[in-house]
């Protein structure tokens, strides 16, 4: 067993912390998500309200915990969607080749030729805004990136002599994909998984901030910034609380992804993981 570097350990710890608090939000949040607990707004930090209260007098810590739940849930679902779709299509394009590969690749080129945010805004101008729609839009848009990566990785592997050797032996597609290609493609894909997740967190937060994502009273980190942004001008930093959470989550996942990627590149076809 290789030693895990300290940065990766920190990353793993905080990533786990965020996910656990999202899963068990109902148990650890001291107040309800939309429960108004104070008559005044933007109360400072106190014993009752560790992070103070927000623009409507709701407990900030509880909002943050429930907000994390929403943000992480949407980002996770979108990542799962983009990953499943992108990697299946990417691997198929690489192994099947021919017109399927051509058609998929050109379509992905087209979608990727403009920024995802712009495309998302165009789509959201006609679609009803709901959690499902957000997950679908983000997942579909982001699957193009996963498609490109997994196709590239798979193409790199399919030209290897060991894949040719398997083909000459008479192996079927299943063996070639699952035994020859996939084990060698896994590590770069796992690292990419982390990056796509971060991207999804930033993306949903941005959409919510613009008022086009998660709709109130449901809490999410981008939305909490939006709800509390007016306070900033009066020197009330409530809007920066979710900012710290977003950054912490993104950096933690990044550290983990970096470690996975480093392990991959240093393996250079080394021992089985």
């Amino acid at each position, binding site marked *: 067993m290789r030693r895990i570097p300290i940065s990766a350990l920190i990353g793993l710890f905080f990533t786990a912390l965020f996910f656990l608090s999202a899963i068990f939000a109902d148990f650890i949040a001291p107040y309800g998500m939309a429960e108004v607990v104070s008559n005044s707004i933007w109360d400072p930090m106190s014993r009752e309200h560790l992070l103070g209260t927000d623009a409507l007098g709701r407990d900030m810590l509880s909002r943050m915990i429930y907000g994390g739940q929403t943000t992480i849930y949407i980002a996770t679902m979108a990542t799962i969607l983009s990953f499943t779709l992108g990697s299946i299509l990417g691997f198929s394009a690489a192994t099947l080749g021919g017109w399927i590969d051509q058609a998929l690749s050109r379509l992905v080129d087209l979608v990727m030729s403009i920024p995802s945010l712009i495309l998302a805004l*165009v789509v959201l101008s006609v679609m009803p805004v709901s959690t499902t729609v957000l997950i679908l839009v983000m997942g579909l848009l982001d699957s193009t990136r996963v498609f490109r990566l997994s196709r590239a990785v798979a193409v790199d592997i399919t030209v290897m002599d060991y894949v040719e050797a398997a083909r000459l032996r008479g192996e079927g597609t299943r063996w070639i994909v699952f035994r020859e290609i996939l084990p060698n493609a896994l590590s770069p894909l796992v690292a990419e998984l982390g990056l796509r997740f971060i991207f999804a967190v930033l993306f949903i937060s941005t959409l919510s901030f613009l008022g086009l994502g998660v709709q109130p009273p449901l809490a999410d980190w981008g939305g909490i910034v939006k709800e509390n942004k007016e306070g900033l001008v009066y020197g009330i930093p409530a809007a920066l609380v979710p900012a710290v959470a977003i950054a912490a989550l993104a950096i933690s996942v990044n550290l983990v992804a970096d470690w996975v990627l480093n392990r991959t590149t240093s393996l250079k076809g080394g021992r089985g993981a």
Partner: protein
Amino acid sequence: MKLVSQRIALGLVLILAISVLIFAGTEILPGDVAQSILGQSATPEALANLREELGLNEPALSRYLDWLFSALQGDLGTALTNGKDIASSIAGRLGNTLFLAFWAAIIAVPLALTLGLVAARYAGRWPDKLISGVTLATISLPEFVVGYIVMYILAVNYRLFPSTSVIYDSMSLWEKLNAIALPVIVLVLVVLAHMMRMTRAAILNVMQSPYIETAELKGLKPAAIIARHAFPNAVAPVVNVVMLNLAYLVVGVVVVEVVFVYPGIGQYLVDHVSKRDVPVVQACGLIFAAVYISLNILADVVSILTNPRLRHPK
């Protein structure tokens, strides 16, 4: 030359394809413009009337061609929400947006290239590590968060600049610059990290080439090695980096304008997305896409023009 014209032609095809995508994206999805305007509770009669009025009963293809040809002539239609001419609303805002992006680019590009060079020069040592640490931090923050952090520090705590960027024609250049200082700083921070990191990688890639070793073994001075051997080969990748990041700046503008309530095309777009004003969204989407694609084509053209293999074929 042939390659360059091919690339430009490809870009035009791409913009055309994107116009189809944007048009289709607002067409085939559930719900239509009439529904958007009148809301879910509208009576079927009212919907039918409005559809007739808006020409929604025409076949999609003829409406698309109609839209495209008017757009090419500068006619972007009228906004559903206020009936104003979209083109004239956009014109002034587009100018504001370009003004903002221009100043952000003017500061970010030289800064990023310098820092990227520093990071490459001290690769693996503390300046490099510091720079990559800061990079990690900035790419982990969405643009709007960077915006509020900057606003909180510079506008609220230190009161150096106004927290919202109100701008109008009668302001002097200096007043305008003062007004946009914060959004410019945010945009610079947002693109700086990427640009720096990519510059560093491009420079290191060139510096590790065997021909740099050849130059070193000729006993050349470091300055001569960089000027004569590294620089000519680094131009293309670095220009590429710059163009890609300017394209990225275009996206950052959308969010930053909302944060600082800046009257640019980005804020105009976001406003009308929530109002479900489809013609405005289509028009703005097309403009953003066109700018983004053009910058990417420019990057490709520069790398074609600076590639000796393509400039001097066998």
